[in-house]
């Protein structure tokens, strides 16, 4: 119930220029637009406005301290019992204040900056994180671990996940890796690019994303281009796979015509959370049809 004496937030800046070299120190964190950040005492009432951070907090054993989550944070099971505060993007500051947190964790995006500023003004510590790349995983986890005052558990989890990822990455790769197209959204057609951790997962799993040359995290692409690049497999979520099969337009893609549609467990792979290792394993199993020991 105590409020942090020093209020500040650490917001890692969103734009690419600042992103290029994030500093990864545990005692001191990267500078941001709003100033330096030091967390004085472990937080005891945390609002987590991102499914990833909610997952991480529960994995760190800090589940009981989470007093608010977004509408979409449904993992683990226990998280469902936490109060639903609405959207994670452009959050409802009033609702957040209503649960009297001493720390608010949000996704570092320009649309959240206003909310962060408002919260800081009222004396609540905020922690804004970016989780687009795999490299962000360890840093985010450790930041949260520090915030709850248990860096040991944090390190344990981070090491375990990285071990699994490494194990998957070391598995035998075929001379020519299978090419995949990851269908993320339909109207317009969107996929993952180099700017997304999902692209890294695909590479770790031993495959190649046909649009890995595009820098954005979720670029928009055309069906023509997909036809030209001719992926071996299409990764698609369970809600959309049937529509893809039935669409006369998608039949022009040889992989669809041949039935090489792989259904991804979107709940598992959609978040760069503590289950990243499992996500990589499941992708490997899906695409290359083998499992790690």
């Amino acid at each position, binding site marked *: 119930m105590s409020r942090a004496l020093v209020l500040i937030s650490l917001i890692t800046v969103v734009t690419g220029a600042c992103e290029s070299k994030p500093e990864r120190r545990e005692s001191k964190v990267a500078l941001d637009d709003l100033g330096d950040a030091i967390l004085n005492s472990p937080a005891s009432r945390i609002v987590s406005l991102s499914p990833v951070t909610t997952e991480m907090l529960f994995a760190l054993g800090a589940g009981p301290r989470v007093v608010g989550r977004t509408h979409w944070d449904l993992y683990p099971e226990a998280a469902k019992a936490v109060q639903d505060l609405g959207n994670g993007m452009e959050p409802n500051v009033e609702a957040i204040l209503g649960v009297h947190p001493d720390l608010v964790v949000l996704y570092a995006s320009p649309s959240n900056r206003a909310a962060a500023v408002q919260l800081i003004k009222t004396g609540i510590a905020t922690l804004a994180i970016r989780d687009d790349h795999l490299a962000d995983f360890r840093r985010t986890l450790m930041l949260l671990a520090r915030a709850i005052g248990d860096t040991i558990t944090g390190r344990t989890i981070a090491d375990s996940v990285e071990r699994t990822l490494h194990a998957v990455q070391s598995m035998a790769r075929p001379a020519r890796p299978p090419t995949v197209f990851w269908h993320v959204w339909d109207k317009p057609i969107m996929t993952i690019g180099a700017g997304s951790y999902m692209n890294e997962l695909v590479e770790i799993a031993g495959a190649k994303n046909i649009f890995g040359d595009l820098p954005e995290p979720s670029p928009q692409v055309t069906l023509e281009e997909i036809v030209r690049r001719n992926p071996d497999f299409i990764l698609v979520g369970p809600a959309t796979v049937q529509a893809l099969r039935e669409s*006369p337009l998608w039949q*022009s893609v040889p992989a669809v015509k041949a039935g090489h549609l792989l259904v991804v467990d979107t709940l598992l792979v959609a978040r760069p959370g503590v289950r990243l290792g499992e996500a990589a394993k499941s992708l490997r199993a899906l695409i290359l049809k083998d499992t790690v020991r």
Partner: protein
Amino acid sequence: MKPRTWIILLVVLAVAALAGLALGPVSLAPGTVWHALFGDGDANAVAIVRVLRLPRIALGVVIGAGLGMSGAALQATLRNPLAEPYLLGVSGGAAVGAVIAVALHFTSLAVLPIAAFAGAAFAVTLVLLVARAAGARGDPRVLLMAGVVVGAFANAAVMVLLAGAPAETVRGALWWMMGSLSDATWQGTRWVAVYVIAGGALLLALSREIELLALGEDPAAALGVDVERATRRVYLAASLVAAVTVAGAGLVGFVGLVVPSIVRALGARSVRSVMLGAAIAGGALVVAADVVARTARAPAELPLGAVTALIGVPFFLSRLRRMT
């Protein structure tokens, strides 16, 4: 319009169609395109040309023709060169229908167009009822006002629906509202074509009445037109054609507004020749705009409505110049 001008218009349409076949986010050599048209050569090129590009061009021509004719008919009947096909609630109603469909996560290809058309048809009916309740007997101003009222209500509804919706729904709805030919299939295009041709034929059959309505209600009545019945038929036919195009490709603005003026500037005088000219020019415009939409920012695709909206700028500028 002189025969030579007609030929030029048809040639422009043909050139636009060829450009649509040959150009796209994936660059193909002309020879490849030619062979692919007949099913020969690289399988992927064949797929691109025959499955992806050809139905797209067909849909573009049909959409453009429908919008052109609808705009021409409404401009003459409402005696207003700024009238356009979406005037009587079509765009607002279709948007509501589409947003509801997207929000309810209907992924089937057929649902969205049907929902959009249903929304548009409902809105048009509402406009006509509102106008009738206001006591107008085909008075264009009352009808325009009713269209504004229903449109405003629809916009508010769309905003309310999108306000609480998740990001994906908003993105999907916005994408639809900006118009696109990217979902063109032969089956879908066939349906749109059937209704556009039927609606267009109806409008052509009313061209003599429209010609007289363009003089004013009293002169038209004096010359023998049943003004109320004729205007109602024109509004219904023009709006339903517009609603069908919206179902096929989302909201594609400015085509129905600009093309009739262009055709008149080319010398078309009678309502019938303006409508036919607008059909050809509209088809060419939409296909050309689609080429730009596909190639300007490859591999991403610009929304078709964004490209056609750009046409609006020089058009209104030139009208402004002519006014002063």
